[in-house]
């Protein structure tokens, strides 16, 4: 598309003077042009009439400046086309006007095609000769053309609100046509029905940059805002790839967990059974015998195994280094309610190697009866919680991409007849009836 195209002056164009204002009017569409609009006074003239009869005039009219000037040449699908006509068309939805621009392109050998532009979204449009077959999809109306199914998007009445240049039909400002749009992104199939005929056209989504490149236009195209009906979603491929990557990373995490579990020492360094209270009238708190914590600084797992029955016990612990006096204070509550044994585990973080003892202070909620329990200490035990946290963190990106994909499609269909505002207004109309 970026190849150099011949300048507009290279081709001979027929011309005459506007019978309304006297301005020069060019005819680039040869015998195909039925109507031409004077770019100076915007009068609509009959191109087939020897005197160029004035068909429509305007006292005052807001002039719209096309983004692609009339007479511009650009290369689309390997063919040079010239912009010969421009029109603005408007539909009203919930009382709000929505206007888009259409550029009529002409090549003497290939005929006509169109470019449409709405809020920076472009479509390359060609009329189709075959008539699509009805093919409802998911409860919505749909049509099928050339093996592809198109879902109904919107029906509206489009009114021509501004014209300029040449047209191969009898164009007038105020012309109306019933328009039905069906989509299969990046394609858009439209049916335009007037009193005399129904014309089907097939559009393909184009970025503004591609149009600018094709017509070698200066500066940058206007940025696209919102999501257009047939704008291809960037998410489906990205979502699939992100989930594939997520599964790979989760697999690596699983293997990492197996490897760490295999390499972890999990060495038993202390085990002792106790009874609480030991003797009536004695202090509940006591200290264990001294034990060694070998190796590098790492975790120490304390397991408490009790014979509690429908009761709770609270343990205050202090893991104390015999030599340095450094201590790790923590508390654990063990509760039994229902079946099974009441037990608990706690993982003390990053304890340096050395000789340690444990200060234990048990307390029974019921403050009566006896409690038998066993304390077991193991060195270098991995924390399973980190694997779950990591798995959660790894799943976050694909979930966000999924939310983006859903949001994109929601924005697309919000502008359709099936959007929330349209559905709400239809309900209101039914209620009024």
């Amino acid at each position, binding site marked *: 598309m970026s190849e150099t195209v011949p300048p507009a002056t290279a081709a001979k164009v027929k011309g005459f003077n506007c019978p309304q204002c006297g301005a020069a009017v060019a005819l680039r569409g040869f015998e195909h042009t039925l109507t031409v609009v004077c770019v100076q006074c915007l009068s609509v003239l009959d191109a087939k009439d020897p005197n160029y009869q004035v068909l429509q005039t305007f006292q005052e009219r807001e002039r719209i400046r096309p983004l692609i000037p009339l007479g511009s040449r650009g290369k689309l699908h390997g063919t040079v086309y010239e912009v010969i006509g421009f029109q603005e068309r408007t539909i009203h939805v919930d009382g709000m006007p929505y206007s888009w621009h259409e550029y009529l392109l002409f090549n003497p050998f290939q005929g006509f095609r169109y470019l449409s532009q709405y809020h920076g979204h472009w479509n390359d449009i060609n009329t189709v000769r075959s008539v699509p077959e009805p093919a409802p999809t998911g409860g919505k109306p749909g049509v099928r053309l050339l093996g592809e199914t198109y879902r109904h998007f919107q029906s509206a009445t489009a009114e021509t609100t501004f014209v300029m240049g040449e047209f191969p039909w009898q164009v007038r400002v105020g012309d109306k046509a019933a328009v039905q749009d069906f989509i299969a992104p990046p394609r858009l199939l439209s049916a335009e029905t007037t009193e005399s005929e129904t014309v089907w056209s097939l559009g393909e989504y184009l970025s503004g940059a591609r149009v600018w490149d094709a017509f070698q236009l200066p500066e940058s195209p206007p940025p696209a805002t919102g999501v257009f009906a047939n704008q291809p979603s960037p998410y489906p491929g*990205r979502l699939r*790839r*992100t989930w594939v*990557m*997520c599964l790979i*990373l989760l697999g*690596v*995490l699983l293997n*990492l967990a197996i490897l*760490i579990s295999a390499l*972890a020492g999990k060495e038993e360094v202390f085990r002792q059974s106790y009874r609480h209270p030991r003797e009536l009238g004695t*202090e*509940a*708190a*006591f*200290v264990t015998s001294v034990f060694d914590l070998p190796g590098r*600084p*790492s*975790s*120490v797992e304390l397991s408490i195994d009790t014979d509690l029955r429908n009761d*709770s016990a*609270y343990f*205050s612990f*202090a893991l*104390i280094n015999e030599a340095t*006096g*450094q*201590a*790790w*204070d*923590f*508390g*654990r*509550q063990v*509760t039994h309610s229902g079946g099974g044994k009441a037990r608990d585990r*706690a*993982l*003390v*973080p*990053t*304890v340096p190697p050395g000789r340690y*003892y444990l*200060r234990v*202070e048990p*307390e029974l*909620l019921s403050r009566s009866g006896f409690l038998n329990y066993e304390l077991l200490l193991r060195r*270098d035990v*991995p*924390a399973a*919680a*980190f*694997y779950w946290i*990591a798995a959660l*963190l*790894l799943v976050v*990106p694909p979930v966000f991409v999924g939310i983006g994909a859903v949001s994109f499609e929601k924005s697309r269909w919000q502008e359709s007849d099936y959007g929330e505002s349209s559905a709400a207004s239809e309900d209101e109309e039914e209620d009024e009836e």
Partner: protein
Amino acid sequence: MRQHPFYLTYGLIVLSLVGLAQYRGWSLLSVNEVKNVPRTVRDNPGAYRSHYRGFPGYFGGK
């Protein structure tokens, strides 16, 4: 893979942190570290006052 440099980098950082956490023996347990606990604790465990008060199930002392 090349299409996901950000996600791949993010994933590798997460996995590296998991490996580091397990190697260093990190834990989610809430503990209070206390310096210079007197040696007399071994002889009189009841005299030691726990610095840990973070557990909601604590029954209120002796």
